[in-house]
């Protein structure tokens, strides 16, 4: 066999294959010739000849065809070397497409031809290449395409990029056109992308060496970053934040589509990151803080836009730091505004009206402001809750952020605990009237949610006890059932400790009902009913369970509180009777009568007043126990006689402030003027004289005479100081208890650790003040519960058993 002869046969066939005239060729003949060459150990030479043949073919014929499609205008335009506008976009685009088409054609032809050559040279590949570990002839031919075509320079000019670089430019240019809204031939680009994906940068045929990655993708990502940076700038300047978000979403989707249809899907995550970086990550802060940003969206209830902002930031960071920050800031601001408004509402009319308006009216206004504050807080919370569900996909991070900033502004209001208790009080007395069970349920839930925010739970408990006490004793609650539900919810939320005393109050009420009924039965069994008998309904309150201010009318001076109220004989009899009955049931208990809390129905006969043409009138007056005592004094008085305040006080021993208040409701309040006062003024002075008003004219048979400031309302300053003092005292005890508990268990502990543990223990009730803890520790040392450990590097304590 002559090698040259045989090779000549093969070479001529290969030329025909490249020229697409292979139909006459016999596969068996060509294969047999290559087979024979390999059997004759000329595989090496054959391999080299084929490679040489391919190199020649590519760098003469194919290179020429491709370079022809790269006219100077196109090259200049791609390089940005042409003067602006000299070559229209359309022309560049057409020329670019022709180049892409030619390259695609060359690549596809090359593959088809090489596939046929590989068939012919199969024996060489299987035997010679396998033995000598050479790459298959197909692989070598593919690298030749890379070297001879893609790495060739147009017209041999090195100052121009090679074909591969030019290809990048053309593709990127087409993508730019598409991004600007043009239509491009995606399949054409995809074919060229496949070519880049099929070729490697070097002999190492590993994933990372693919030309698509090493040559194209990097440039694509870099130019995209540049494009989106500019777009971001422009959008921030020209569009509002909502549009920005929508545009960003659209762009991300577009890039995804582009990877699918035009490039490779493996690029999707990378280009997404570029768009996310440029349009979201680096811009989120500016976007959120822009004029039409999150604040604007919240104010104008742009829920869809907010959802977009959320969605976008969630893409780049699951913690959504910018959105969370902005939300917190906005909530805090809105909350602080509410706080300021509440304080303003409470104080606004004070200066100018103080002279005229009575202090009570001011307090009422403040109470209204307090209730409004709570309602506003709820409304704010509802607003953000709705937003959270609608726009933020009920996201946990956002939820925490909303919770935190809500808690922050709520607790920054010094009287939040009192206001919240007042809010519940108001609802229990009026708010739930006519509401369905579901509505009440929602209300209770809201109250509990608010309570969750309040840090000083102990203060809240104090107020709640006080308000609840008044509601129960004065029968002001619309539904005891709802009250109990509320307590049950608090128990679920805050635990048994918190509600134990509140439940005790309910128990007292139930027991009192039973006592009253029992007493009635007891009296009935004593003998015939006395027509003049006075009905008694009694509430027996456990002194530690009920708040002191409910049971002690006023903490006036000690002298007054020691004096015992003088009851008229008829009343005294009943009092004794009940006391006896009670002592029989519960021996060893002290009953302390609270005249300021009770009410009495009295039947009063007003005589004829012929001068005014009044007939005799009977009215049933519902008055406080003290008012009843005052009125009874006038029973024994001749018509027209008067009593001074001092006289009344001397004969009843009613504490001064209670007396003044009762006299105000009996003699000053315009509709319930049972007494007349001389001189007629609003204030009550020691020397004022009181007469029975025989000319009282009531519209109804029953008249209720309320006591001024009996309802639950905001505390005045004096009361607050007192509440605070009381609360501080109870906090002091709580701190001491906690310190002793901790030390008893740990025996020795450093100061810092002790303080930290104490704070942790008490956190569910209130946030203890560190100074207060220090003082309590000092006090415990003085009382020898603890001692300082001498020679300890940091100050430490030891528990003394």
């Amino acid at each position, binding site marked *: 066999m002559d090698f040259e002869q045989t090779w000549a046969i093969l070479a001529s066939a290969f030329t025909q294959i490249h020229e697409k005239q*292979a*139909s006459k*060729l*016999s*596969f*068996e*003949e060509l*294969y*047999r010739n290559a*087979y024979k060459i*390999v*059997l004759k*150990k000329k*595989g090496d030479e054959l391999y080299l000849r084929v490679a040489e043949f391919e190199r020649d073919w590519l760098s003469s014929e194919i290179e020429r065809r491709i370079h022809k499609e790269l006219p100077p205008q196109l090259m200049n335009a791609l390089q940005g070397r042409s003067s602006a506008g000299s070559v229209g976009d359309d022309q560049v685009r057409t020329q670019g497409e022709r180049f892409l088409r030619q390259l695609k054609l060359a690549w596809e032809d090359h593959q*088809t031809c090489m*596939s*046929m050559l590989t*068939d012919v040279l*199969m*024996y060489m590949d*299987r*035997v*010679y290449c*396998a*033995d000598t570990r050479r790459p298959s002839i197909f692989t070598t031919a593919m690298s030749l395409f890379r070297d001879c075509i893609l790495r060739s320079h147009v017209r041999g000019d090195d100052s121009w990029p090679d074909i591969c670089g030019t290809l990048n430019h053309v593709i990127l240019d087409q993508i730019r056109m598409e991004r600007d809204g043009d239509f491009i031939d995606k399949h054409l680009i995809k074919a060229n992308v496949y070519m880049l994906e099929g070729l490697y940068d070097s002999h190492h045929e590993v994933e990372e060496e693919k030309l698509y990655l090493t040559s194209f993708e990097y440039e694509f990502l870099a130019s995209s970053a540049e494009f989106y940076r500019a777009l971001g700038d422009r959008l921030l300047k020209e569009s509002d934040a909502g549009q920005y978000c929508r545009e960003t979403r659209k762009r991300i989707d577009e890039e995804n589509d582009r990877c699918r249809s035009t490039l490779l899907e493996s690029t999707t995550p990378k280009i997404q990151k570029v768009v996310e970086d440029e349009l979201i990550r680096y811009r989120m802060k500016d976007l959120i803080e822009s004029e039409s940003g999150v604040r604007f969206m919240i104010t104008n209830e742009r829920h869809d836009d907010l959802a977009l902002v959320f969605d976008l930031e969630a893409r780049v960071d699951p913690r959504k730091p910018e959105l969370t920050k902005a939300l917190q800031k906005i909530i805090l601001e809105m909350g602080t505004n509410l706080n300021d408004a509440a304080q303003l509402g409470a104080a606004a009319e004070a200066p100018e009206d103080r002279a005229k308006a009575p202090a009570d009216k001011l307090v009422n206004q403040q109470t209204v402001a307090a209730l409004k504050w709570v309602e506003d807080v709820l409304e704010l919370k509802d607003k953000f809750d709705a937003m959270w569900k609608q726009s933020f996909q009920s996201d946990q991070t956002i939820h925490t952020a909303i919770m935190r900033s809500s808690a922050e502004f709520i607790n920054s209001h010094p009287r939040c605990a009192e206001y919240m208790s007042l809010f519940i009080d108001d609802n229990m007395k009026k708010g739930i009237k006519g509401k369905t069970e579901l509505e009440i349920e929602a209300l209770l839930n809201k109250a509990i949610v608010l309570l969750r925010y309040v840090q000083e739970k102990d203060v809240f408990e104090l107020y709640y006890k006080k308000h609840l006490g008044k509601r129960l004793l004065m029968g002001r609650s619309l539904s005891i059932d709802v009250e109990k539900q509320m307590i049950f919810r608090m128990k679920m939320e805050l635990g048994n400790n918190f509600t134990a005393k509140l439940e005790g109050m309910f128990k007292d009420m139930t027991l009192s009902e039973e006592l009253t009924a029992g007493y009635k039965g007891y009296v009935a069994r004593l003998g015939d009913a006395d027509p003049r008998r006075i009905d008694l309904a009694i509430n027996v309150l456990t002194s530690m369970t009920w708040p002191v201010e409910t049971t002690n009318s006023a903490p006036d001076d000690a002298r007054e509180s020691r004096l015992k109220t003088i009851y008229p004989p008829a009343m005294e009899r009943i009092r004794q009777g009940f006391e006896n009955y009670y002592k029989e049931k519960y021996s060893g208990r002290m009953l302390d009568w609270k005249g300021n809390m009770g009410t009495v129905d009295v039947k009063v006969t007003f005589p004829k007043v012929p001068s005014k043409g009044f007939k005799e009138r009977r009215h049933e007056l519902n008055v406080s126990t003290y008012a009843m005592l005052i009125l009874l004094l006038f029973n024994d008085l001749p018509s027209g006689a008067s009593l001074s305040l001092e006289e009344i006080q001397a004969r009843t021993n009613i504490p001064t402030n209670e007396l003044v208040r009762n006299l105000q409701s009996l003699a000053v309040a315009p509709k319930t003027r049972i007494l007349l006062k001389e001189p007629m003024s609003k204030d009550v002075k020691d020397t004022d004289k009181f007469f029975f008003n025989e000319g009282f004219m009531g519209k109804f048979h029953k008249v209720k005479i309320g006591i001024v400031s009996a309802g639950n309302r905001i505390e005045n300053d004096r009361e607050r100081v007192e509440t605070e003092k009381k609360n501080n005292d109870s906090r002091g005890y709580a701190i001491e208890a906690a310190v002793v508990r901790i030390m008893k268990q740990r025996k020795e502990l450093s100061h810092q650790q002790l303080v930290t543990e104490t704070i942790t223990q008490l956190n569910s009730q209130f946030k203890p003040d560190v100074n207060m803890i220090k003082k309590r520790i000092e006090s415990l040392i003085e009382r020898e519960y603890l001692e300082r450990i001498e020679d300890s590097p940091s100050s430490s304590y030891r528990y003394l058993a």
Partner: protein
Amino acid sequence: MASVRQSAAGLICATFQPIAVIVGPPTATRTFYLYFELATTHSAFLASATKEEWLPEGRVVRIPSRDPELFAYFAGFLMTGKILTIKSGSKSTDENEEEWDLLARLWVLGDFLLSTSFKDAVVDALISKVADGVSVPTELHELIYGNTAGVCGMRRLIVDLAVFAWPKGTMGEKAFNEASAGFFRDVAVRQAVMSEEEKTEGFVLESNSCKYHGHGEGSCYKGMCGSAMI
């Protein structure tokens, strides 16, 4: 014996289509009808030769350079999975010797057709014939070394037979020429790398191993599904 029950994947054979393969010089051609799927699975040559770009006019493959007598064994192998070289009833020494030569030629045909499974089956047929214990092939080296281009299973097999199984003195009788030079070199190398175990215990031809097969990591023809070897 393989079980009569086999995988349902074998049902694919019900859809096979035939192609015509015309073998032999124009004066003495013989036409074989092979199933396309079988032929292209077992021969890379036929797989390429039946591609559309090489067969513009239809399903007729021409192999004028090969002997139709030999090709018949390949066709038979495709249908049965067996090497059908035992002549019935003949016990003559001549025919026995002829079969060695036939098997070697079949292996070369398999090499030309790039049919690993056929080559491996022929190797196994040769080994089983050695195992019969009637004779040992001693004349195959020139044919094999002249018609192969590198290391392969058949070369290794005949070298091992020469080193371990040839009767004493046979080696010395063989002529040394261009065609047999490679063979003697391989024999020398084989002797040089012989293991201690082989030196003391001799050489055992394992009929059930893939030692002289060419499939490498790919599947052995024996594991291919059913007698039709899909």
